[in-house]
């Protein structure tokens, strides 16, 4: 068993608190992504799990055993660094064999393990090369190989794909998913790229400002964001957040009254200021009729859809996702209507919590990229 748990972990560097109380339960064999903007504490979390940083307080355990005082080499983990951190003077084969050598394995056993890893990652022709003679993608695979050979209980990966070009990155995403499926090992994957997290992870830890904002499946994080931060971080473009007022069974924004089902929201939703969240795919653009008047500011055709930026009379901006080829000109006045199935309400505070009760509404959507 290699479940990983963080219990009330805090980490400060001097006066600066990088992580406030962190609680995570990662299951055995799970692929978990730590996702968040730069500086939110993802790497610090991973490095504490690796034993490269020490928690200021709290416990970290692997497989039920507290590892706080265990050296990195004794934790039975392997880590892939963003910079790959290959030993430059060693050949590919020597790099991959190094952790086994440090464990005292004999040469024939090491060679066999290296051969198997090289076969899995298609590195056989490169075994005698030095890292400098490899492309970024090849170095990446060597770093993976070095992690693989030791058959660790937990794999830690810190932005492993961010130095690759877009095409290679999408190829490696598929490779990593396949690798995880084959090995069935616990993997903790740090990224600031939501596409990587959404496509690869079983569950995502969304982090911000040293706190976990939400720890849930990609589907939940997308369709049921816990708060305004998650709503505004996940999705490209992210969820629209429109400030307004709740009045009985309506949400009033400017002069538009959007009907809402009060029973679908928590009791803490009271009349008064609130924030309505709507994903761009639920914002319909119409020429006339009932709705929220707006003006077209920009229409970006990506080929398979059009992303439209709209401006409300009060200056607020709203994004909409409509079919490709839809004719819209800049400055054109339009009417916006929101699909009731896609309406979320948040507390009006800076990072207000979501108030939907999530009674099954048919709202499972394909994740967008």
């Amino acid at each position, binding site marked *: 068993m290699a479940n990983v748990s963080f219990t009330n972990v805090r980490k400060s560097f001097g006066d600066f608190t990088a992580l406030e109380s962190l609680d995570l339960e990662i299951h055995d064999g799970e692929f978990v992504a730590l996702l968040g903007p730069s500086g939110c504490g993802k790497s610090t979390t991973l490095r504490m799990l*690796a*034993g*490269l940083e020490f928690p200021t307080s709290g416990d970290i355990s692997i497989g039920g055993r507290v590892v706080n005082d265990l*050296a*990195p*080499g*004794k934790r039975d*983990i*392997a*880590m892939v*660094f963003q*910079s790959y*951190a290959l*030993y*430059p*003077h060693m050949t590919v084969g020597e790099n991959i064999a*190094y*952790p086994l050598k*440090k*464990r005292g394995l004999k040469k024939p056993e090491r060679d066999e393990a290296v051969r198997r890893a090289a076969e899995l990652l298609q590195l056989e022709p490169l075994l005698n090369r030095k890292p400098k003679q490899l492309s970024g993608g090849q170095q990446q695979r060597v770093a993976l190989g*070095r992690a693989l050979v*030791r058959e660790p209980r937990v794999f830690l990966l810190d932005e492993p794909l961010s130095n690759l070009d877009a095409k290679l990155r999408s190829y490696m995403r598929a490779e990593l998913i396949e690798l995880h499926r084959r090995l069935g090992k616990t993997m903790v994957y740090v990224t600031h790229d939501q596409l990587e997290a959404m496509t690869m992870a079983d569950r995502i830890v969304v982090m911000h400002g040293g706190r976990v904002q939400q720890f849930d499946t990609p589907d939940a994080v997308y369709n049921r964001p816990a708060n305004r931060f998650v709503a505004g971080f996940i999705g490209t473009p992210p969820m629209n957040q429109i400030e307004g007022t709740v009045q009985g069974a309506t949400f009033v924004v400017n002069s538009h009254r959007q009907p809402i089902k009060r029973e679908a929201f928590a009791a803490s939703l009271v009349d008064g200021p609130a924030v309505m969240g709507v994903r761009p795919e639920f914002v319909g653009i119409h020429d006339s009729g009932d709705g929220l008047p707006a003006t077209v500011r920009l229409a970006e055709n990506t080929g398979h859809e059009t992303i439209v930026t709209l401006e409300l009379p009060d200056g607020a901006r709203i994004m909409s996702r409509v079919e490709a080829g839809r004719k819209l000109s800049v400055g054109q006045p339009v009417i916006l209507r929101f699909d009731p199935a896609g309406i979320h309400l948040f507390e009006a505070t800076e990072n207000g919590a979501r108030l939907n009760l999530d009674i099954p509404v048919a709202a499972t959507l394909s994740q967008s990229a």
Partner: protein
Amino acid sequence: MTTIATDPPRNGPSPLERSYSRLGMLLIAPTIVVFSAVIVYPLLAAIYLSVFSIYTPTLEGEFVGADNYIEMLTGGVFWSSLLTTLIWTVGTLSLQIVFGVGLALLLHQNIWFRSLARSLVLFPYFLSTVVAVLVWRWLFNDLYGALNHGLMQVGIIDMPLDWLGSMPNAMIGVILVGAWKYFPFVVIAVLARLQTIPENLYEAARIDGAGPIARFWDVTLPQLRSVLTVIILLRAIWDFKEFDLLYLLTGGGPVTSTQTLSLLVYQEAFSLNRMGQAAAYSVGMMLVMLVFMILYIRRTKEES
């Protein structure tokens, strides 16, 4: 004068390229002149002088062909002096490297006095050789020197030792002073390199199960290899031809036991007034150093 605008012909340099290369020549000309005056001319002059028997004060003498070289190869003085030079070079260089690398590793650690220590360590290197030697001669003095005093206090010796006037003490003394004077160069060069070793490599090694000693051998040392090669070659060349420190500290003595080739050349030219023979010795010395230099040049070419 052109009346029709045409593209410059693509075979051969364009006018712009030509004017650039003319400017380039102009800019390096002073360097070439100075280089010729202070390096090429003395070099050729030494080779020329080495086939004459020349009396230094008058700089006159007759052509003797290879006589000076035959004397050099068969006379024994050159060979014993070469041996002395090698002992001095290997001795002082080894200590410079050991202490230099050791201290660099120490200073690279996060210790509170690091920045102070970093500037202090440079002190011997920047101190003028004359001043340094005077201080060391005083320390080494057999009658009132602090070194003997200290050693006697602790009880390591009962009688004052003659440090610079007897062997092997004199050789040990110059080697120590040479190491003290020049190890800061090694510290600074190694420290600069240490700071460029990516921290991730150490972290990867720790995760791979490497302890502190394994990390030194498998991460630090391989990264230092190229800089150490260059330092060793450079310092070997410089120590091999060292003059002022040895001349001031022992003058080559007792008798000739610390007389390196530089001192031999000097003595031959200005004490014995045999400029031709001195020139032949210096040509011999240059040939030995050429080996180091070729190694150095090949090494730096490999790097780039």
